[in-house]
């Protein structure tokens, strides 16, 4: 029981990170119907920027943790958002209106480009970071197994819940959110009603990138290492999460992320760690066979 509880805590933490990345996939897919394969790299860049910022703040002597965290998060979100915007502007917008395959290939190219770019600039070695949020407490002790809840885990889950709640309200209530949803349902019509569609699409990339940056910061804090290749696997996992939850659906991305995190952790804990990715993708295949729209996806509405 204690072991189970511990895995649950770990799974939720990991799921929160996947969920934040998955939102970027689902938003972009919802609005322009393409998979932004460079999104995982955007997250990786967010992680790198965080490491650089933490190190720089340490050199500057800013060591009060809440302030340092706030500064790092803001800087990472801003820079990554600029990356997201630029990627869309350079690699996807010129291809709008061409075949569906073209932007997909462009996205893969962009992903490889960003990966190599970071590898050349930062080197291929794993970059470590001193633990920033340390400690935690023992939740309970049963059968000689202590359930450990780290402050970092509380921080990750808390921040994710707050961000997702704010983001959901933002999409549901504000003009920008409404324009996002309108473009999702009928881009041409949104344009005919005066919505600046190109800007709305850019904003989807910017917002998705900013959330991925937060995930990047979290991962750096959680694992203490970063590497130019982390974007690929995390990206594919988060993409799987978005599809599992129902691509195009915001709550779906959050739920999908959580599920993928839990599946991965529980599989590693009770079966073999080597097969954790196989487990996650098998669930994906099963869901797609029995529910092609994903868990919370809406079936395509027939347009009259």
């Amino acid at each position, binding site marked *: 029981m204690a072991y189970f509880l511990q895995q649950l805590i770990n799974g939720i933490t990991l799921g929160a990170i996947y969920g934040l990345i998955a939102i970027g996939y689902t938003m972009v897919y919802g609005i322009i119907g393409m998979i932004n394969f460079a999104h995982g790299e955007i997250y990786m860049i967010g992680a790198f920027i965080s490491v650089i910022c933490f190190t720089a703040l340490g050199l500057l002597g800013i060591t009060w943790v809440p302030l340092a965290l706030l500064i790092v998060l803001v800087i990472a979100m801003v820079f990554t958002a600029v990356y997201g915007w630029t990627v869309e502007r350079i690699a996807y917008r010129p291809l709008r209106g061409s075949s569906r395959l073209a932007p997909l290939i462009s996205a893969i190219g962009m992903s490889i480009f960003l990966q190599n770019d970071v590898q050349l600039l930062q080197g291929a070695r794993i970059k470590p970071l001193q633990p920033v949020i340390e400690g935690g407490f023992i939740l309970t002790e049963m059968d000689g197994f202590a359930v450990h809840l780290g402050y970092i885990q509380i921080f990750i889950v808390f921040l994710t819940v707050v961000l997702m709640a704010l983001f959901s309200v933002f999409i549901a209530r504000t003009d920008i959110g*409404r324009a996002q949803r*309108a473009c999702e*349902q*009928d881009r041409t*019509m949104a*344009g*005919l*009603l005066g*919505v600046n569609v190109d800007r709305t699409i850019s904003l989807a990339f910017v917002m998705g990138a900013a959330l991925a940056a937060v995930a990047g910061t979290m991962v750096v804090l959680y694992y203490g290492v970063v590497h130019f290749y982390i974007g690929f696997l995390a990206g594919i996992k988060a993409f799987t999460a978005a599809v599992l939850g129902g691509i195009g659906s915001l709550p779906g991305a959050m739920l999908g992320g959580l599920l993928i995190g839990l599946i991965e952790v529980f599989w590693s804990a009770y079966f073999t760690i080597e097969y954790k990715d196989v487990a996650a993708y098998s669930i994906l295949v099963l869901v797609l066979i029995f529910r092609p729209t994903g868990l919370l996806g809406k079936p395509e509405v027939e347009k009259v």
Partner: protein
Amino acid sequence: MLKVSGLRAAYGPVEALQGVDVDVDAGEIVALIGANGAGKSTLLMTICGAPRARSGRIEFDGRDITRLPTFEIVRLGIAQVPEGRRVFPHMTVLENLQIGATPAEDSYFDDDLDRVFAMFPILEERRHQSGGTLSGGEQQVLAIARALMSRPRLLLLDEPSLGLAPLVMKRIFEIIKEINESQEVTIFLVEQNAYHALRLADRGYVMANGRIVLKGTGAELLADEGVRKAYLEGG
């Protein structure tokens, strides 16, 4: 007010407009009739820049709008009720109207909302219902109301009567007349229902195969032998 000259446009390889000239003066109701596939809907969409014109010129209030992006054209005061209504199915009636109000100043919103609710009480009743759950007639009304929320000076209507029960259709034509007269909105109307459209309109155009083949006042076209044969009798 609207001056279209030598307009050509295409969807892919098919040239749907092959040099179209149309004028609409301020305050008028102008009807455009023609068979399926004549290019009527394409003309309305091309006026709004989606698709973009291949050649030719579109002027609105003397200003060349041929190359402007759609949202800027719309912000100049042109609103469209497109073919198939295109109500946002997963948004509430109110949200549909809010999106419609995008080009208008925020300060007008409450008054404009009261105005369209007064015109279409059914929308107020259903304000929190999602667009996809409305009936065809209600969706048509919503699409018109949504276009009015932008405070247009020119309203482009594409087949507002399509698929509606006769009584509802009659009501829609009354509404169009009302919008034109009491709110001073110029109307350019595409219709398959030539009889109703021409009776309502000050002037009309007949389109076939991407060209304007005939024009005149509503009464003239109604009396025209060719028009009667092609679009009125047996239809």
